[in-house]
């Protein structure tokens, strides 16, 4: 929770600095500094990516974790990128103490990325943006089937031993993510990117019974994750024309 508050404060500070920079303009129209414009057609491109690192990320946490995910986002004004991420994950593990845990679920995250570069020059003309750093937020949702087995009771003096099993189907779990990363255009729409994310505010009905949740990870505390994606960006005809014009000028 403390990490979430710190990152949120930094994000809000950056947003405030940028908002202040926008607001601090000379009232004279001629000298006004336009750094971002939202004119013309909003829709510029659609991107689809596969996260090629998330399977390794799962294995780093526990060798019994399998997970993969895809992303799709649309480009609005080269500034805002509504995004959907979806994937599947499962785990089947027996701990040293004899406890077992199995879970599997699809998950989806809905959110928005914000391009940290200005989409216009100082004179107010659009900039050609193909690669950019971004900050984003997500809300993650999972509907989990899980089973916890051989969970021990503690009764040292009386030396009784008993275990308990917990299980449920279609348990709703939600969480919040803060994401930062970079998207790079490699060649003619082929794009790659990476991001780091802080996952926090995990909530579910039987939270203590969800030891590991697909899309989130181990549920005791906040989680960090790294993504590396490869994919393709399909731009509109007008956007592709911009690229060709830029190349001609060179």
């Amino acid at each position, binding site marked *: 929770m403390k990490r979430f508050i710190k990152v949120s404060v930094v994000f809000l500070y950056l947003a405030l600095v940028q908002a202040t920079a926008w607001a601090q303009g000379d009232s004279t129209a001629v000298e006004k500094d336009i750094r971002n414009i939202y004119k013309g057609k909003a829709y510029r491109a659609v991107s689809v990516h596969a996260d090629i690192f998330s399977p390794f*990320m799962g294995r*780093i*946490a*526990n060798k019994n974790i399998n997970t993969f995910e895809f992303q799709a986002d649309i480009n609005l004004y080269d500034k805002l990128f509504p995004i959907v991420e979806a994937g599947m994950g499962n785990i089947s*593990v027996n*701990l040293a*103490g004899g*406890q077992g*845990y199995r879970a599997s679920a699809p998950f989806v995250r809905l959110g928005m990325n914000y391009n940290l570069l200005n989409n216009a020059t100082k004179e107010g003309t659009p900039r050609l943006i193909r*690669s950019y750093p971004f900050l984003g937020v997500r809300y993650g949702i999972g509907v989990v089937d899980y089973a*916890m087995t051989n*969970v*021990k*009771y*503690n*009764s*040292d*003096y*009386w*030396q*009784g031993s*008993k275990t*308990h099993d*917990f299980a449920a189907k279609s348990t709703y779990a939600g969480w919040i993510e803060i994401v930062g990363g*970079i998207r*790079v255009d*490699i060649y003619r729409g082929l794009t790659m990117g*990476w991001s*780091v994310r802080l996952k926090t505010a995990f909530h579910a009905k039987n939270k*203590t*019974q969800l*030891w590991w949740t697909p899309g989130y*990870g*181990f549920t*005791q*505390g906040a*989680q*960090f*994750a*790294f993504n*590396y994606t490869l994919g393709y960006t399909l731009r509109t005809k007008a956007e592709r024309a911009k690229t060709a014009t830029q190349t001609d000028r060179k």
Partner: protein
Amino acid sequence: MNIISQKKLYSPLIAAAICITFLFAACQAEGDCTQDTRTSVGTAFFQPVLGANQQYTAQTLTDTIRIKGVGSDSFINDTLSISAARLPLKSFEKNTSFVIQKDNLKADTITFIHDNTEQLLSLECGVKVIHDIKDIRFTQNRIDSVKIAISRIADNKTANQVKIYFKVE
């Protein structure tokens, strides 16, 4: 920005991001339980002491008090001089009895009647059983009275939950 300069810029950033994420992922993987999952009744012993005003007042007793669970082979306390003890209640039954013998005098049997509520802490820590004491029955060979100060037994450290008062010797 061309691809070569992008790589120069992004490569150290990627390496730093991966290292940081590995560090936190390794720290957050499964581990041993670090919580104390036991629960027990914090029990204190008192005896009447005659004051200057010829009135008896209850004062903390420190004496050799042997305590053993009925049905168990091991002593909770055998030869040490104590003024308090922690008595573990049964997780799978609603009655728990102990034999208490003060200073080699005639022993008493004390029976806790309690409800049990299971609380899952985590996969690693298992289930903790919280007890709610409903009643205490006891023989009165040396015990004068028993008072329930706190009926909910939820940890292994709260003191003075039950107070046992011995008779005047």
